[in-house]
C-alpha cells in the first residue's frame, strides 16, 4: 500500500491503471485505496511544482525565526495557530534551538512581507522577537532541484 503513495508522491498524475500495473494489484483495489486515503486525509492535495521565476513571476520569500513565550495548557500550539492562519505564512514549524517557530512566508514584494512582520507578527503579545531572512535563491525544494542546466541524455543510444 505504501508503494502506491510513494508513486503518487513522485507523480500525482499517475493513473490508477498505471499504478495497478506497477504494484501488481487490480485497478479497483488501487482506486479504492486512493479514494479511502483522500477521505481519511492521508492524501491531502495534488499539487504541481512550478518554476515561477521562469515565467518571470517571482514572489518574495522569507524565512522568519520567531521567539515566542509558551502559554499554560496549550504550550506553543495556540500562538502557532494564531500565526500560521495568516495566508502569508506558507509553512510553519515548531523547532528546537535558539528560537521556537520557523516560518516560510510568501509575499508579492518585500514591502508585503515587512508589513506582515511589523504589523501582524511582531505586535503579538507572545512574540518576543523575530529575525527575517529574505530568500535570495532557491536551489532545491520538495526534493526537486532548480537552476540545473537541462540534463542532456549522456547515454549512447544503444549499448550491449
Amino acid at each position, binding site marked *: 500500500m505504501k508503494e502506491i503513495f510513494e508513486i503518487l508522491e513522485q507523480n500525482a498524475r499517475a493513473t490508477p491503471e498505471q499504478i495497478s*500495473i506497477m504494484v501488481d494489484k487490480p485497478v479497483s483495489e488501487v482506486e479504492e485505496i486512493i479514494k479511502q486515503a483522500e477521505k481519511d486525509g492521508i492524501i491531502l492535495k495534488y499539487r504541481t511544482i512550478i518554476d515561477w521565476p521562469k515565467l518571470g513571476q517571482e514572489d518574495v520569500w522569507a524565512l522568519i525565526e520567531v521567539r515566542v513565550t509558551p502559554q499554560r495548557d496549550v504550550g506553543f500550539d495556540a500562538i502557532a495557530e494564531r500565526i500560521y492562519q495568516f495566508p502569508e505564512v506558507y509553512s510553519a514549524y515548531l523547532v528546537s534551538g535558539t528560537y521556537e517557530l520557523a516560518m516560510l512566508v510568501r509575499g508579492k514584494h518585500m514591502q508585503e512581507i515587512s508589513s506582515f512582520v511589523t504589523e501582524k507578527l511582531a505586535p503579538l503579545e507572545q512574540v518576543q522577537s523575530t529575525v527575517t531572512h529574505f530568500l535570495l535563491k532557491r536551489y532545491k525544494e520538495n526534493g526537486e532541484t532548480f537552476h540545473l542546466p537541462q540534463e542532456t541524455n549522456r547515454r549512447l543510444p544503444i549499448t550491449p
Partner: protein
Amino acid sequence: MLNTESAATESRGNLISQKVATLPPSGIRKFFDLLSSVEDIISLGIGEPDFVTPWHIREAGTYSLEKGYTMYTSNSGILELRQELASYLDLHYGISYHPEHEILITTGSSEGLDLALRAIINPGDEVIIPDPCYVAYPADITLAGGVPILVPTNEENNFVVRATDIEARITKQTKAILSGYPANPTGAVMSQKEARAIAELAKKHDLLVISDEIYARLVYGVEHICFPSLPGMKERAILISGFSKSHAMTGWRIGYVAAERSFTQALTKIHQYTMLSASTIAQMAAIEALRNGEAEVEKMVQEYNRRRRFMVKRLNEIGLPCFEPKGAFYAFPSIKATGMSSEEFAEKLLLEEKVAVVPGTAFGACGEGFVRCCYATSLSNIEQALRRMGRFVTKSRLTA
C-alpha cells in the same frame, strides 16, 4: 565509421592477426550506425542504468581526487575495498572469500571475464555458453584461443540453459561452462534447482564454471543464486561481478573477480602485465558504494521493478508475447507473430516509429524471433515507446 574501419582492416589484411580479422563485429555495433541516422528516437536499446551514480558515491570519488589518490594501487586493488567486498559477499550470499588472496579488483567485469578465459584456456579448449548470451562471451573465448560451444535455450525453458543440454555437448576438450544469470539479453534468472544440476555436472565432468553475476542485485521477487555458494562449487567456480548495474557505475569501469587462490593468482598474473590496477578513483568510490550504498540500490531495484511490470504487461497486450523476466533490466518479447525476422523488425521499427530495440540475433542465432527491450528508462519513455510499438505491430498485421 564501421565501414571505414573494416575497409582499413581489409587493406592491411596480412598485418592484422587472423583471429581478429575473422572476428565478426558485434551485432549491436552494426545497429549503432543505423541509429545515428535517425533523430528523436526513444531507445529501449541501452544496456545500462538510466540513473546517474548516487551522489554520495560520486562525492567520494571527487573527494579521493582532492586528497590526491592519483597513483596506482596494488595489482589486486585497495585492500580496504577487497575487505568490504569479502563482507558484502558473505552478507548477501553467505560465501566467504579471503580478501587478501581470493579477490581481484578489475576494470569492470568485462576485464574479469577476459582474464578468467585467458587464464584457463589452452588452444582448442571448449567453453560452453548459452545461446542467446551476452555479446562478449563467444568473442572473448575465441580471442583467448578457445572454442565457444553454444547450447540453445528457448522460451520453453525460460531461456535458462539446462544441464542435460550442456551434458550432450561435453567432449574431451570441454574446459568450462560460462553462464551469466540474471541474463542479458533475456532477463532470465536461474533457479536453485537448475543451478544445482549444473553444479553436479561440473563436478561429474571436472569442469570449471565461470559465473558472470553482474546483474545479481537486479532480481524481482526471487532470490539470486550465487553460483560459487553452491556446495562444492567454490573450488571450481570463478565469480565475476562489478558495480556497473547494481550501483549505476558503468562509466567508472570497476568490477571484481572472486575465486580460490590458485585462480586469483593466475588472473592477477595477466592483470599485472596488462592493466596494472583498476582506476584508483573508481576503487575509492566503490568502497563508499559498499559501505553506504544499500538504500540507493534498493530504491533503484524498486523503480526497475515498477517499470518491468509495466513493460511486460504492455508488450503482452500489444501482441508481442513476453515471458516474465525476473532479473536484469531486459524484456525479451517474441516478435514471431509479425512474420518478420528480428533484424527486419528492429530496423523497420526504428525507421517507421523511431523506437530502438536490439534484434535478438545480436546475441546468438537462438535470439531469432525475439528483440531485447531495456526498461532502464523513464516510465513515460516506456509508455510512449510501447504505444508506438503497438501501432507498428497492428500495421504490420494489416499489411501481412
